[in-house]
């Protein structure tokens, strides 16, 4: 999963639908390797009832827990760890509300299995805060009023954060492409563009 030059990855850090389907299988193997005890054979098939021990690095902290192999990263974040900033909107990879950073790249947490996330660095919207201080992108979202109901907002913020880490000076078109995997039914899109632009400037200014 963390291989470089992965052909399934888009330049902006997203993943193609086809690429995702391919990567699920590969990820399961990696994850299984990650939890196997020394000297034990890697099981090829895990039964749904069998709990698997995982260690997940979330916002710089390691969480060790037992998961069912079918649990998504989103489920574990919200229902097992009560890290609820990451929102559930569709749970089928369509709306982007659950976007988190996996190794710095935006990912739909509902489309990643928890076992697949072992060995990666996961960042949620809570992880952008420095103590109680908002991060640069978060501040820009408040200043530019880049949300209404705020439910898609954590996902929008993580998509923007991921975009800016890869491309610190995105053009208008690059912002539109980078953010188009995140739906906002309130339609705050024009203000979201403003917020991403402001955040890009402020990041460069060291804020």
């Amino acid at each position, binding site marked *: 999963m963390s291989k470089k030059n992965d052909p399934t990855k888009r330049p902006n850090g997203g993943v193609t639908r086809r690429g995702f389907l391919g990567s699920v299988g590969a990820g399961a193997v990696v994850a299984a390797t990650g939890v196997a005890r020394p000297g034990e054979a890697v099981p090829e098939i895990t039964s749904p009832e069998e709990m698997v021990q995982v260690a997940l690095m979330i916002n710089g902290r390691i969480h060790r827990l037992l998961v*069912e192999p*079918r*649990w998504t990263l989103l*489920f574990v974040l*919200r*229902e097992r760890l*009560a*890290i*609820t*900033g*990451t*929102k*559930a*909107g*569709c*749970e*089928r*990879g*369509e*709306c982007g*509300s659950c976007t988190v950073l996996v190794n710095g790249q935006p990912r739909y947490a509902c489309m990643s299995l928890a076992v697949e996330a072992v060995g990666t660095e996961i960042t*949620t*919207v*809570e992880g952008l*805060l420095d103590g109680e201080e*908002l991060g640069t992108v*978060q501040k820009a*979202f*408040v*200043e530019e*009023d880049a*949300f*209404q*109901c*705020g*439910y*898609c*907002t*954590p996902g929008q*913020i993580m998509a923007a954060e991921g975009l800016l880490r890869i491309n610190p000076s995105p053009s*208008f078109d690059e*912002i*539109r*492409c980078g*953010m*188009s*995997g*995140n*739906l*906002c*039914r*309130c*339609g*705050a*899109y*024009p*203000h*979201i*563009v403003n917020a991403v632009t402001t955040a890009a400037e402020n990041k460069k200014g060291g804020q």
Partner: protein
Amino acid sequence: MDKDSPYWIDGSVPETPGTGEYPDPWKKTEIVGTRVPKVDGYERVSGAAVYPHDVSLPEMLHGAILRCPHAHANVLKIDTSKAEKMPGVLAVLTGDSPGADMPWYSRGGQFSGRLFDTHCRHEGEEVVAVAAETPLQAVDAIRAIAVEYEILPFVIDDEAALDPSAPAVQEGGNMVGEPQVRERGDLAAGFAEADVVVERTYSTKCEIHAPMEPHGSVAKWDGNRLTIWDTTQGVYSVQQGMARAMELPLANVRVIGHYMGGGFGAKLEVGKYTVYAALMAKATGRPVKIFLPREDCMLVTGNRPGNKMTVKIGAKNDGTLTAIDYKSLGSNGAYTYNAGTGTLAAYLYTCPNVRTEDTTVYTNAGKARPMRAPGFPQGAWALEQAMDELAQKLNVDPVELRLQNILEELQAGGGRPLTSNQLSECLKKGAAEFGWTTARRKSQGDGHLRRGVGVAACFWGYAGGPPSTVVVKLFSDGSVNLNMGASDIGTGTKTWAAMIVAEELGVAVDQIQIEHADTATTQYATSSGGSKTVPSDSPAVRAAAYAVKVQLMRMAAEQLEVDVSDLELRDLTVSSRSDTEKTVEVTALEKLGRQGLVIGTGYRDPNPEDKVTFPFGAQFCEVQVNTRTGEVQLLQFLGAHDSGRVLNRLTYDNQVFGGIAMGVGLAMTEERVLDRQTGKMANANLHDYKIPTMKDVAIEHTCVPIDIPDNEFNTTGTKGLGEPATIPTAAAIANAVHDAIGIRVTDSPINPIQLVRLLAEQRKEA
């Protein structure tokens, strides 16, 4: 206007709860009207805000609902035996369970089925609910339930539903009452008088609200007290529905809805899932959470009906309208609502001879619910395209044609004056800012990329009013608690409320903490729908702050030994106008120090009698059509809205752009697809049901607020905005597409599939 009670009220409109001292209109404002970021922005961007979907309680169980997979069926037999034995399953609820056999109501308390109805009238009707230790155990359990259905013939086409031989969705046929007719003048005489007549049939597709937070609730019992966390636009509406369903006193039902992830009209009423959660929580003695999967939300939580509309307009050569004949057909799905769209055509323009007829039918599809300006965007799609065609036939600028027929009074009940109508300003200022005249003269282009511009106008048929009660509590250190019942559905309710208190008392916005949307601890407010939260509740906020101010002034008068009339309050300091020596900071008021706090209660003042109030608006857009691919790129959009006084310019802009985004969905991307062979929804997800993304909305957006206070309407001079902002959008796009390529697209959505076909037909004809 119409006799029906407004759609956000279940039953009659409550009266004003009390009277108070109402302040005069603001002359000059310092905070109101500026750009203030949302006061709860930190919570919403940090992940700290707890939405109902985030609520997790000790010992909480998770529910899931088994739904009928057929468009029309009778439930013959349910076998839950396997599910009951599954690990973690603690409750299985059917219509036979204790307390679960109850009638279910529709709009206005009309009987409309049962909590679990064995007659499933559309795909997605509820059959069994379960509660288990984990969400996945609940889903596993409903999959293990066997249901035997008698599959019935169905009808999903609105016109087919009118056929007497069509399957009956409800007893007594598929007509929902008689067609609703509005009539004035003499239609035949009006058309006889006309020099030019345009007539055409238009249609819009059914849209789903699709708020980003799915529908759902958490229910918890403490003895005979029930607490509900609900993603709702109106906590008091859910409280009433739950008290009725559970046969509890209103006071025993507490509904909390501090944050909620969007509603657009789909979250105005209590859901069956809330009752299931409460019943299963009662049965198990543990809290129960039920949130619907996205697919279920698409099926059962409401929609904007698709409509077929025929509009015929007559005008004299000088542009004066002489007659409008408007007919609309739509379906409210399988349960009672109202799919009418004729209000806009009946009242937007001055016209002596008008007839509108709205027919609503039952079909085997999910029930409609009010969706952002129910009926109006569809009506605008037809009327405002017809006006565009009329302007073309008369060879006049479509802006001029509209200006010529501006509404002077509401032409209903013999004529009722309006408190304000700035539609002319919307059209004139909007056109000026947009550069309309120049843009219209610009060439469409001669390559495969053609550009065009379009305009459409609107009014919105509600304006709000009583009741609303707000309490402002000022502490001796000058900080404030504000207590109001209204939900903040994303429109910035808390922010403008704080701004009003700040304006009135001189307290800094960040010194104001707000309690809201909790039936146990906050004051009564009607649901946040109808674009009426600002005009209904902002005068109550102001009245409450004013009540505090009056008390502070009296305290100061006593302390400074001057007459109250000589005093003024600025920046939390009371000073004498005549003697500048006499001044006291509020925090130094001795009586306030002794009392600890001052409480002010504010009520919404009644609306003026014999007058009506509507918000107005006009939108302009420029499009680029690719005649090879049928793709339409929105280049720019401008919204010029008359919503009375603007309270917060920042959130105001956001509302206008958001309304436009939703209108783009109606015009270009959204369509509920029901499979003709099975009656099932073919695109019950957010991948196949296309809500606009950032790439679908216009490249440039401009907001032109008219910002003229309507001081006759209420003490803040405000009217609504959220719904009007989406009414003219789709029609403006259709008009711009027509300007670009000469094709009148009568059926939504204007997508490449349709446009390529229409362009091919156009080439064939040429």
